[in-house]
């Protein structure tokens, strides 16, 4: 049984039909990537999975359990954490406070401390800047912080929305390495990306989303060789 199973979801913004029957699944231990151009509906898909948007049709199941009955804020208790598009760090809080906020659902002080330390080992840059206000971090650092914060809830499934957005290529490499490490440490990842080449390089499988519909799905390496994908998303003629 798939860990996350998205079944034929239709999501609307009032009259705009943003998702027209999207189905995908993510198995335990995988990195699955969802690629697509601007306005394809990637963010909408993630927001629907995390309960911030309600689909008019279709279902989202986590380990077989329908998530429709849970409000967005309860998802984290189910082991799903999201790093929203544009990072969404708490700009006025310090790095450390941001990270602590990620452990909001945790009441075990000792465990929070342990998780915090492992976040700082993973991101030494953040440790140096633990007292710095998050709004003054560089884009890459903010992305690290957003990921570190999401990990504080010890999620089983991590949803990432365009972690490479607005980052220099060298930082993008770093972020993708980190995502791979996180996955190897046992967290399943659903990665939404426009940067198809990088995403397909670390993912096991991938889906291609176009104007609200999945047009392709395959193993990541096969997708990377697919002609349409190469033309449309990898800039290879």
């Amino acid at each position: 049984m798939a860990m996350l199973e998205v079944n034929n979801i239709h999501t609307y913004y009032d009259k705009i039909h943003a998702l027209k029957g999207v189905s995908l699944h993510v198995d335990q231990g995988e990195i699955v990537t969802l690629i697509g151009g601007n306005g394809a509906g990637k963010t909408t898909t993630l927001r629907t999975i995390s309960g911030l948007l309600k689909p008019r049709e279709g279902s989202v199941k986590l380990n077989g359990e329908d998530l429709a009955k849970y409000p967005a804020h309860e998802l984290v208790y189910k082991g799903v954490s999201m790093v929203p598009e544009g990072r969404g760090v708490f700009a006025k809080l310090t790095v450390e406070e941001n990270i602590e906020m990620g452990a909001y659902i945790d009441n075990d002080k000792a465990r929070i401390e342990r998780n915090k330390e492992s976040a700082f080992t993973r991101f030494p840059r953040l440790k140096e800047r633990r007292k710095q206000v998050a709004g003054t971090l560089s884009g890459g650092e903010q992305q690290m912080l957003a990921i570190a914060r999401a990990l504080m809830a010890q999620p089983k499934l991590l949803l990432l929305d365009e972690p490479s957005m607005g980052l220099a290529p060298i930082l993008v490499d770093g972020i993708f390495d980190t995502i791979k490490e996180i996955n190897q440490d046992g967290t399943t990842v659903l990665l939404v990306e426009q940067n198809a080449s990088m995403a397909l390089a670390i993912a096991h499988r991938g889906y291609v989303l176009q104007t609200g519909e999945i047009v392709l799905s395959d193993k990541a390496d096969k997708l990377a060789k697919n002609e349409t994908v190469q033309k449309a998303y990898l800039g290879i003629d």
Partner: protein
Amino acid sequence: MSFLKNLDLRKLPMQLLVASIITLSVSAIGMVELFGGRFVITGLFTMAQILFLGPTAFFAYRAAQEAPAGKKWQGMIKALLLGVGVGLVMVVFVWLAQNLDVRSIFINISPRLINILTFEHAGGATTLFIALVLSALAGGALALVPDKLRNALLVGAGVTLLVGLLSEILAERLRSLFGSQLSSAIIASKALQVVPAAVLFLLVAGISYMRQSGRIGKVGPTLKPSQTKIVRTALISLLLLVLPMLLGSYLTEVTNNIGLFFLMGLGLNIVVGLAGLLDLGYVAFFAIGAYTMAALTSTGHLGLAGISFWVALPICVAVAAMAGFILGMPVLRMRGDYLAIVTLGFGEIIRILALSDLMKPYIGGAQGILNIPKPMVGELALIRPEQMYYVILIGVAIAMFMSTRVRDSQIGRRWMAMREDEDVAEAMGINLVNTKLLAFTIGAGFSGLAGAIFASKLGSIFPHSFNLLISINVLSLIIVGGLGSIPGTLVGAIILVGLPELLREFAEFRWLAYGVLLVTMMLNRPEGFIPSEVIKRELHAGDEAEQAG
């Protein structure tokens, strides 16, 4: 003339223009004339002189401050030019006023005004010119002295000025505490005497200077931080307990009003400052608290239960909190501007309901509810402001305790996360519905408490006491004090509620001062007088980055 090289005069015309306009307008609107006879320091200078010389000094200081480091003397040149400029403008103004009849338009440009401006003697235009130049030079010189000394001088001058302004009230206090002899030695005919003024200035400036050098605090036995805290708390508590005796009836009444607004401010601070929900109808809960108290305790024909103040008080808080909860429900989905408008509407609905014929049989319509008894302690009715003070003090103490605890708890963090980013907060497991409702409920409860005490303190309440201006006032005071900050809320209440009351002497001009204060505050210190840590960071995040980079 090497120090004149690169003299940057680009900003000067603007500064000159603004300084002239301010000086001209305080004269033309009648402020100078009204305060012409009002000495701040007996025989030395009047309010009027501060008004028409102060702006020049201030702008000269600003101009001089911008001089590049190492060429600070250029500042004096700028100050001089500014002084000469404003001086010329004012001399022309005086000449025009003497030779043309402008009173049909500017009724306040009177012979009396000209007398004041020319220091009450013929040919005084020259004196006025010299006085303006000297003020400008004094302002410019202030930019030259070291920071610590300047701060000390400004604090000293500020406190002396304030004492001078409030001298009438202070004189009354001194008389009743220490007898009339001492009182008239310090303050005579509404103004501070020269010698006490000098002593006060030197004392305050001296203390301020020593504090900045960190020389105070090292005198006396050194205490551990925890002990210092205990000593400080004990001293403050003691002071608060005897305060009404020191202040007398009138000032205690002012303090009580400050207390009630502080109480409301604490509540609104939770809603706006911590949870970030802009509520413009906050007066509604104040009204609900007051009307509940009135209906439950009144001995008049509208009284429902005739129960005592103390029994009714928690009920009032609960009813107001319930109202907050109920209002919270429909506005859950709204943010920012929309929320502000909905709450604004709610505030008005409550007031109009109170005025309406529909509710008249229960809460009296425009006639309000009368005969609300005072709180009783045993056989004693708390009638005097000095007695009511303690009721308000207890209310404030409870509200402060609760505010601090809530702010530092997990609920406080929830509010903060929600204020910053609702989606992320939700993704982190924060239930937005509960979090918002909680903020509304607690905030409304505080306001209800203030309203209940208010009703009993006044003895009768009318719908017009609960207008929009109260909501605006409470919002202003938490912003001026420092959004999200509890000490800031107190300072805001003192400045926006206390000062206008104490400066009654200055008639409608105090509202002008109030407006000017709000505008300058928001321009120069948008984080408020005593900002909370988080807000300070937000507004100065850019500065920090600059320093770091």
